[in-house]
C-alpha cells in the first residue's frame, strides 16, 4: 500500500468516531459558545457576559460555586486520605469491615441518596424527631447540606483512588525507611506523601470538575440564593428562557474546569521531565 492510501485508510477508520464526536459534542458546544456572544436580536455582543459579571446575584452564584467546590474538595480529600492511610496500615477487624463497605454509596442511585438525606436531616426529619428540632443545626437548603451531599457522592471513589495509590507503595520502602531511623512523621512526609501526591492531584481534578458542574444535589438540597452555577444555568434556560445568558454561564463553568485541567496536565508534564 502506498503511503497516501495508508493515510486515507487511517483517516477513514477514525472518521465514524470523529463524526459522532462532532455532531454530539463539538457542534453543540460551538453553538453554545456562539449563542453566549449574541444578544436578544441575534447580534454579536458581550451583553451576556456583562450580565453575568455585573449582576450581584450572578456574582454571588459564582462565589458560592467556588466556595462550595473548594470546601467540598478539601473536606473530601482530607477524609479520603485519612481513610486510605488507615486502611493501608491497619489490618484490624474494623479496618477490614471498612475496606469491604466504604464504596457502597457508589451503588446507591444519586436521587435516592439525596431524598434519603433530605428525609433524615430536614428540620422535621428523622434526626430532628430523635434529638429535638432545636438541637439540629440547619443542614437542609443550606451550603452545609450540599457539602455533605458532595461528601457522600465523592468520598468512596476518591478513597478508592488513594487506597490503590497507597497500596502501590511496597512495604519494604516503608520498612527500609524505619530501618535507617525515620520516625512515623518523617515516614509520612518524606515517603508516603511524595509517593501518593500525584494520585491526590488526579483525585482533586476529578473532584473539582465533578462538583463545579454538579446539578442534582445543589438543585434539591442547596439554598435558593445564592445558587451553584449548574442550577443557575438551568433556571436561566428553562425558567427565564434566557438562552444567551444560560450559554455564557455554561462557558464560564467550562473555563473553570479547563483551568483545573490545564493545571493538572501542566504538573504532570513537569513530573515527566
Amino acid at each position: 500500500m502506498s503511503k497516501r492510501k495508508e493515510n486515507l485508510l487511517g483517516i477513514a477508520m477514525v472518521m465514524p468516531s470523529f463524526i459522532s464526536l462532532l455532531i454530539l459534542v463539538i457542534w453543540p458546544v460551538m453553538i453554545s459558545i456562539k449563542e453566549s456572544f449574541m444578544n436578544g436580536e441575534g447580534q454579536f455582543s458581550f451583553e451576556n457576559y456583562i450580565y453575568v459579571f455585573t449582576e450581584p446575584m450572578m456574582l454571588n452564584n459564582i462565589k458560592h460555586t467556588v466556595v462550595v467546590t473548594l470546601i467540598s474538595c478539601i473536606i473530601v480529600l482530607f477524609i479520603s486520605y485519612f481513610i486510605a492511610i488507615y486502611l493501608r496500615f491497619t489490618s484490624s477487624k474494623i479496618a477490614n469491615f471498612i475496606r469491604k463497605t466504604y464504596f457502597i454509596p457508589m451503588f446507591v442511585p444519586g436521587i435516592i441518596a439525596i431524598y434519603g438525606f433530605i428525609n433524615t436531616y430536614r428540620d422535621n426529619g428523622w434526626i430532628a424527631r430523635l434529638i429535638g428540632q432545636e438541637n439540629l443545626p440547619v443542614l437542609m437548603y443550606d451550603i452545609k447540606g450540599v457539602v455533605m451531599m458532595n461528601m457522600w457522592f465523592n468520598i468512596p471513589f476518591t478513597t478508592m483512588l488513594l487506597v490503590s495509590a497507597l497500596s502501590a507503595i511496597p512495604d519494604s520502602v516503608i520498612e527500609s525507611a524505619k530501618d535507617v531511623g525515620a520516625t512515623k512523621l518523617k515516614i509520612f512526609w518524606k515517603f508516603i506523601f511524595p509517593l501518593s501526591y500525584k494520585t491526590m492531584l488526579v483525585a482533586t481534578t476529578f473532584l473539582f470538575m465533578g462538583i463545579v458542574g454538579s446539578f442534582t444535589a445543589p438543585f434539591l438540597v442547596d439554598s435558593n440564593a445564592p445558587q451553584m452555577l449548574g442550577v443557575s444555568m438551568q433556571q436561566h434556560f428553562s425558567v427565564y428562557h434566557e438562552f444567551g445568558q444560560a450559554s455564557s454561564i455554561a462557558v464560564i463553568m467550562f473555563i473553570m474546569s479547563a483551568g483545573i485541567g490545564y493545571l493538572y496536565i501542566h504538573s504532570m508534564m513537569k513530573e515527566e521531565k
Partner: protein
Amino acid sequence: MDIQLDVKNLTHVFKTGEGIRDINFQIKQGELLTLLGPSGCGKTTILRSVGGFIQNQQGKIIVGQEDITSLSPEKRPTAMVFQSYNLWPHMTVFDNLAFSMKLKKMSKDHINERVQWALRLIRLENTAKKYPSELSGGQQQRIALARALLLNPKVLLLDEPFSALDAKLRYELREELREIQSKENLTMLFVTHDQEEALSISDRIIVMNKGDIEQMDSPRSIYNEPNTLFVAKFIGKMNFIEIPIADHKASIGNNMYHFSHTNSSKLTAAIRPEDITIQEGKGDWLASIKKIMILGHYAEVTLETEDGILKTFVEKRKLESLHVHDQVSILLQDVRFFEGNDWIKYIKKEELPTCITV
C-alpha cells in the same frame, strides 16, 4: 573472638501455625553467617525478627552487650537489605544514600564525603544524580547495600539480595560482597535459598527446615558431614540408596557395615557422586553403565547396581574406556547412613570375602 549477635530461644509462630521455633545461634564479630533453606522455612522471619520488623512472642536478641529485643527498628543497630524493591523510587541515588545521615543532622561536607566513599566502594561513582528507575537491577542492589553500610550497622542483614538477578551477575555481586565484608570487617547475617551461594561466601551456615535449625556448621562440614537426611538432600548432589538392615548390619556390595544399635529395618545410604570411582579390576561393588551425559570437561555417568541407581562424575580423559552397557566395578570412598532423618555412625566396616572383579 567477641560475640556480636546472640539470638536466644527465638520463637514466632504465625496464625497459620507456620513460623520459627526455639532458634538459637550466635555470630562472631566479622563473621558471615548464612541462613539457608527451602522457600517458606522461616529465613526471612528470623531476619525480620533481628531487624525489629516482627515483635517476637518469645526469645532474646542481643547485639554486642545490648539487649535489643524490645527496641523498634529505627532504634536498632542493625541495617537490612530487603528481598526486593529496596530503593526509594522518588529520591536520587544521592538522596537514598544521604537520607539516614540527614536524619542525624550531619554536616553537608561530611555527608558528601561518606556518600562518595560508599559509591566508590560499590564502584558506582557516576550514579549519584540518577533515579533508581534509571539503574539496572544489579546496580540497584549495590546501592541498597551501600545505603545499609552507611548506617555503620553492628549487624548487617541481607535477605536474598541477589535472588532477582541472573546467574552471572549474582556470581559477581557475591564476590564483591565477600570482598567488602572482609575489608570492612562486617558482621553479616545473610539469607539465601541458593546452596551454591551459601557454600561459597559463608563462614558458617545454618540449614533450616520448616522453622527449625537442622544443622549449623562450616560450609565444608555441611557438605561433607551432613547431620540429617534433609541436609544431605538439600546440599549438593547426592545418591541415596535404601538398604535393609539385619542384626545391626547392612551391606553395600561386598562391604558390610556394623552399627552399635538400630531401631528400624531400613537405612538410607548417602553417597556423593565424587566419592564413587569407576575402575577396572577389583572393587566394592558391581554395576553396569546405563547412561553417559557429557557436561563439558566432565561427564555424568549413570550406573545401575542391584540396590539402585547411582550417578557419578568422570573426567573427559577417562571417558574413552567407558561405554554404555559395560560392566564395571566401583569403589566407594565415603558412605553416610541415615536412620529416618538422623545420621547414624557405623562402628566397623568389613570387607566380605566374595571378591568382585570384572
